[in-house]
């Protein structure tokens, strides 16, 4: 019998998983081989003796538990890390929303103003890419929510408008009493503070000019004015009106 096989059978015999036929084989073999019998007996003695041995050192679970309590708080398990992460996330969201809210509020309260001095004229391009040529001593105020739902500006003085075409957002010009609504067109408005009349001349497209519940629809080449004193809204005869008819 080879050494490997011999120790294998000894192991099975000593640890109690030997089959009956293997046991028989081992007994026969040991009886026929006194040297191996001697080894077997010696191993058996060692085995039985070691079976009664126990570890001298015995751990103390109570002490270990106390140490473990410290370890686990240093360890910072995933759940705690997740809570930290959640706190950070919430703080970040509050900051972002708060900052956005503040920006929105500040943005809202400040409409943008363009102005010209006496003798000065200038072109202004609005956020919707409409162009305005401001005559002298004119003030144009662009509302803070310009271009959100509608395009609202107010005017004192005189300006020529070239409105970028955008049907869904009407362009509204508030002059102290008259209101001009346009979609995509170009026209001139004169609303001089010192004069009693607000005048409009349409160069192209279609414009609604209204004041005091009255409204005039003006098309290319038409002009109109509103008299602040008499509250009269009227068409002005211009050459092109005749050519249209």
């Amino acid at each position, binding site marked *: 019998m080879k*050494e*490997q096989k011999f*120790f*294998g059978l*000894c*192991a*099975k015999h*000593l*640890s*109690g*998983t030997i089959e009956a036929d293997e046991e028989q084989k081992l007994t026969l073999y040991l009886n026929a081989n006194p040297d191996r019998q001697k*080894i077997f007996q*010696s*191993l058996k003695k*060692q*085995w039985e*003796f*070691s*079976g*009664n*041995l*126990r*570890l*001298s*050192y*015995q*751990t103390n*679970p109570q002490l*270990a*538990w106390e*140490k*473990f309590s410290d*370890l*686990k708080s240093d*360890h910072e*398990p*995933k*759940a705690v890390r997740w809570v930290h992460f959640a706190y950070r996330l919430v703080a970040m969201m509050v900051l972002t929303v708060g900052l956005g809210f503040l920006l929105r509020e500040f943005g809202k309260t400040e409409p943008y103003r363009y102005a010209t001095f006496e003798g000065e004229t200038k072109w202004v391009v609005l956020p919707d890419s409409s162009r305005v040529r401001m005559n002298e001593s004119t003030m144009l105020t662009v509302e803070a929510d310009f271009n959100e739902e509608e395009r609202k500006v107010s005017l004192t003085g005189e300006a020529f408008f070239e409105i970028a075409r955008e049907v869904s957002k009407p362009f509204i010009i508030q002059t102290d009493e008259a209101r001009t609504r346009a979609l995509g067109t170009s026209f001139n408005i004169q609303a001089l503070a010192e004069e009693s009349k607000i005048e409009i001349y349409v160069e192209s497209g279609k414009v609604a000019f209204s004041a005091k519940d009255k409204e005039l629809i003006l098309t290319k080449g038409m002009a109109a004015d509103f008299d602040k004193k008499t509250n009269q809204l009227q068409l002005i005869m211009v050459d092109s009106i005749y050519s249209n008819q």
Partner: protein
Amino acid sequence: MSFTSDQKRLDQNFKELYFEYYAVAQRTAMYVLMQIDTSEDVAQSVFLKLWDKRDQLDQLNNPKAYIIQMARSGALDVVKKGGHLSKNQLQLGFYSEISDEPENVDRRQAIEKAMADLSPKCRLVFSLSQFEGQSNPEIAENLDVSIRAVETQISNVLKSFFNTFQIDSKITKVKT
């Protein structure tokens, strides 16, 4: 409210598991490493891992086997990294349950010495069998190996013992 009571229940379950199996984990690591301090460390880190998963602990159908396997692999990692002490610093000591007559003291010391010559994996199988009184099928289940593998390891132990004691008897012969 159910969240906090759930937490309390999980904490309590964990504590019970700790007290039931901490010593098992520590001894398992000790059989592999033959050292006190490192085996305590390994056992603690086993339970730290379990602590992270304490909400899944009731899904373990054999917590003892799971803990033994974790302690075994944790201890083998220490061996791999060379973090264990050299042979002359080993602390694997035993006492005999029957008696400590002078004759037994010698035999006990011989076993302690022979243990150091075994490979860590071999030593663990032998220890579970002899010092923990586990049967081969129990060892196989606890270590998640086949019974055949357990028998092979035990046969390796016997071979090693044979070599060790043969050398010892030669030395004795020279002395006399």
